[in-house]
């Protein structure tokens, strides 16, 4: 589904990603953990070229997203993204946030778009909030609308960039629940997270990043209980 070959990213002289090679399979849920500044978010953002990789290749569904022949906008429709700060459109209602891309990119009629939008709101448990503007929603609700908005385009992959880090603790659960449901439905997901409990429960594989590289990877049980690298064990001791 996603294949990353020798990906590198530098900001000026600072090398934030170094020689990343990884493959993510269809229907797999991969969590990326690691200390802040380790390059997790930058790596995730390279997967839909919100961040321009300096070197290497990223293949998504058989297309090299670095290839100038490929239309990045079409590829991005296939890759949903959820942000730490939700980034809902404040001038739109919850429903309009979801339907905007359907109307303008997929050229749905208003009725079709709203039907699909309402279905997605129902899926994230927010049917009642369809006509509210984002500022009147709680953080957890906003993030659930943001997930619904990303799902509207029927992406093959969903990227989550610390989706619960900006939430009050009591709202983390509702967002994680929506993500668990998605995982159960077989969505391919790449999740940068600090929620170790969630990672342990939902992830098929965990990548541990430090200093711009993937230091170690493995199934949750094996990584959490018997990490091979000293650095990984150190990190896990701090957060678990």
């Amino acid at each position, binding site marked *: 589904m996603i294949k990353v070959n020798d990906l590198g990213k530098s900001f000026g002289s600072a090398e934030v990603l170094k020689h990343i090679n990884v493959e993510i399979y269809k229907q797999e849920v991969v969590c990326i953990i690691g200390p802040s500044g380790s390059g997790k978010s930058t790596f995730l953002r390279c997967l839909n070229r919100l961040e321009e990789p300096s070197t290497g290749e990223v293949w998504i569904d058989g297309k090299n997203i670095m290839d100038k022949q490929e239309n990045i*906008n079409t590829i*991005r*429709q296939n890759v949903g*993204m959820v942000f730490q700060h939700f*980034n809902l459109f404040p001038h739109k209602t919850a429903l309009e946030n979801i339907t905007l891309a359907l109307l*303008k*990119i997929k050229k749905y009629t208003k009725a079709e778009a709203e039907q699909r939008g309402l279905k997605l709101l129902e899926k994230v448990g927010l049917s009642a909030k369809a006509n509210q503007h984002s500022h009147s929603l709680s953080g957890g609700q906003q993030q659930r609308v*943001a997930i619904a908005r*990303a799902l509207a385009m029927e992406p093959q992959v969903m990227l989550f960039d610390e989706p619960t880090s900006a939430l009050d603790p009591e709202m983390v659960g509702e967002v994680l629940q929506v993500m668990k449901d998605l995982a159960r439905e077989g969505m391919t997901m790449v999740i940068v997270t600090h929620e170790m409990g969630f990672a342990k429960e939902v992830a098929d594989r965990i990548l541990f990043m430090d200093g711009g590289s993937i230091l170690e990877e493995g199934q949750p049980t094996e990584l959490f209980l018997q990490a091979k690298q000293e650095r990984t064990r150190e990190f896990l001791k701090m957060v678990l």
Partner: protein
Amino acid sequence: MEFFNLIADSMPLLLQGVQKTIELALLSLLLATTLGLVFGIMRVSKKAYLQVPAKVYVSIIRGTPLYVQIIFFYFGLFPLIFGRATSPITAGIFVLSLHAGAYLVEIFRAGIESIDRGQFEAGRALGFTHGQTMRYIILPQAIKRMIPAFVNQFIISIKDTSLLATIGIAELTYSAQTIYAVNFKAFEFLAAVGVMYWVIINALTWFSHWIERRLSAV
């Protein structure tokens, strides 16, 4: 009492001036907004071939007085290019638009840059192009924030039309000049003209507050 009779007698001519002033201001602002939007979007672009022309435009126009620009285009550049004098109205609207447009570039730039970067990223991540993201996501939010600065520029432009009297456009100030050139009541007529500008501008200010209230209610 004599003062009011004097003004009342000249009212038709003054009102013609008011009409011309408003026409000039509206038309110039319309063109200036177009210029401001196009160059404003170029100004926030990362591509040098878009950004640099916008910067040069703003720098030249903001760096020189409007009065000089009016004289320069009307008496200098236009006759040179077209081989004859252009109509004062055409030249006047051109210069006013060009002038206000440069300030609007900066207003658009500030408005666009005030929108959180995450909005842009959310749009691009959904698959919107750069242009679509601007149109459907960034500009609707930015324009709302720009309204006070925009109104301010509109007010300045209305008053700037008075400088067009120098090239013989019969706007409000010029109308007054032609009247007091005959009756020598400069003080009275300039006072009357001042009041008329004040009324136009405050009516506009009131209108813009009304719009702002309506927009913030949404």
